[in-house]
């Protein structure tokens, strides 16, 4: 199974992010990776956590707007040009990356990047064709 990311709608107000982290801490959910995209008014917080179900329920109960999105976690060799190789392959195939961010933990000697694609099936095929290793959800959440 592909990993799933949780997205949370946040107004650009002091302390909102801390409220999310407090809610997750309370229900004992561990944040594995995090990225924020923001505008002057609002932001979208993207999270990889160790228990999606628990995290979503807790956040919804507190009135947050939350959604779940399938993403791709790919191993990137941790050397100069490692990320560039993947992006080059994607570009050559005309595949657009909606956004991406780094995972905290390494997988062996490799770094791990989280990618969001429109066409996830095609992305997976292209990555496989070019010998890029992707990591499944269960493995990623507990890495």
């Amino acid at each position: 199974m592909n990993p799933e990311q949780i997205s949370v709608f946040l107004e650009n107000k002091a302390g909102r992010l801390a409220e999310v982290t407090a809610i997750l801490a309370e229900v004992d959910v561990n944040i594995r990776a995090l990225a924020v995209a923001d505008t002057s008014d609002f932001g979208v917080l993207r999270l990889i956590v160790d228990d999606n179900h628990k995290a979503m329920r807790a956040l919804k109960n507190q009135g947050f707007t939350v959604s779940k999105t399938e993403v791709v976690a790919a191993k990137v060799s941790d050397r100069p040009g490692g990320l560039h190789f993947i992006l080059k392959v994607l570009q050559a195939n005309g595949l657009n990356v909606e956004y991406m961010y780094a995972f905290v933990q390494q997988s062996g000697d490799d770094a791990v990047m989280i990618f969001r694609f429109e066409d996830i099936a095609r992305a997976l095929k292209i990555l496989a064709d070019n010998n890029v290793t992707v990591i499944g959800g269960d493995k990623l959440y507990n890495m």
Partner: protein
Amino acid sequence: MIYDIEYETMPREALQAIQLKRLQATLERVYATVPFYRDKFEQAGITPADIRSLDDLGKVPFTTKQDLRENYPFGMFAAPMDNVVRIHASSGTTGQPTVVGYTARDVKTWSLLMARSLMAGGATRGDMIHNAYGYGLFTGGLGVHYGAERLGASVIPVSGGNTKRQIVIMKDFGPTILTATPSYTLHLAEVADEMGISFGDLNFKYGIFGAEPWSESMRQEIERKLQINAVDIYGLSEVIGPGVAIECYEAKQGLHIFEDHFLPEIIDPQSGEVLPNGKTGELVFTSLSKEAFPIIRYRTRDISALNPQPCVCGRTHVRMTRISGRTDDMLIIRGVNVFPSQIESVLMEMDYTEPHYQLVVDREGSLDALTVKVEVGENHFSDEVKQLQEMSDTIAKNIKDYLGVSARVKLVEPKSIPRSEGKAVRVIDKRKL
């Protein structure tokens, strides 16, 4: 179904004859008993005897909210306090409250009109009415209550507030008719949802909603969420309370005004000139049968139009279009007239937007700035900022196209706009004029 066949389907000529007779009696009454009206008539150089046809009503001066305030509390009463059995008052959020009174016969008339209204909205003897209009000085709760009893239906006097308990009552008692403000109804739907209760599983068939302006798209939203037929009811305490006009569920195309008891006019709010049928303007009412608190040419500040076309339901009483705004709610932003209900229409026509919004008007330098806050619900939330930005831009573009005014759209978190148990606060005007 029609409660009062004789009067509600009376041929227009007969109806007008009754109107004239009752109008003349009402004018005589206020001239004799209310100094305010006597002075007004004298200043205008008329006496009740000068009103020989319905068209002559145009000679009579208007009455305004300000007049009622200046005669606070009982100065406009046309019956001795001994004969007054009930007193209601408006909330007075924008100044001194206005106080109205009822004789025993007035209460009877009001009950009759509310029984007519409830039946026009789908209720019959066998129904159970969940009445979530507030009980108290506000006329909504008791108005529906007396009408329901007159009709012979069972009424649950649940009043406003304590929403979770209301949902439990709905589930356990199985009421078939809901009466509430539209904004509170949406709040009920939200809370039911949170409690895991679906309105579709409840017994409701019809809903009768009013006491605040709402839009056609809000009707569709309520009908879909509650799986009922929703009709609009209109009234104001100065005229009698709810039961001045009601939409029939057969047509749902405007509200029949009970013309045997109230005489409607539409005027140009600036010039005071009476406008012909079909033209939009300020709604003006004259009561025809009230004893304790008759009202003459009262300017409601509500914006509507009159439609005299025959209706499929069989009622002959003229219909008013749903209130599209208020002359005093009307915001003038950079010279453009804006009603909150228009913003609501824009939002609801974009079906990915929940109808929770608020208008904030401020002044930046010497220019008015309108910000529309819109809550982002789950249906249209995206993990991509680009899409949220596009949604916000589309809302702003549609407001500009529809209203001709530029607005800054601000997407906000769910439940961040305050919910009210009664009427929704849709506008915050921070301009210091």
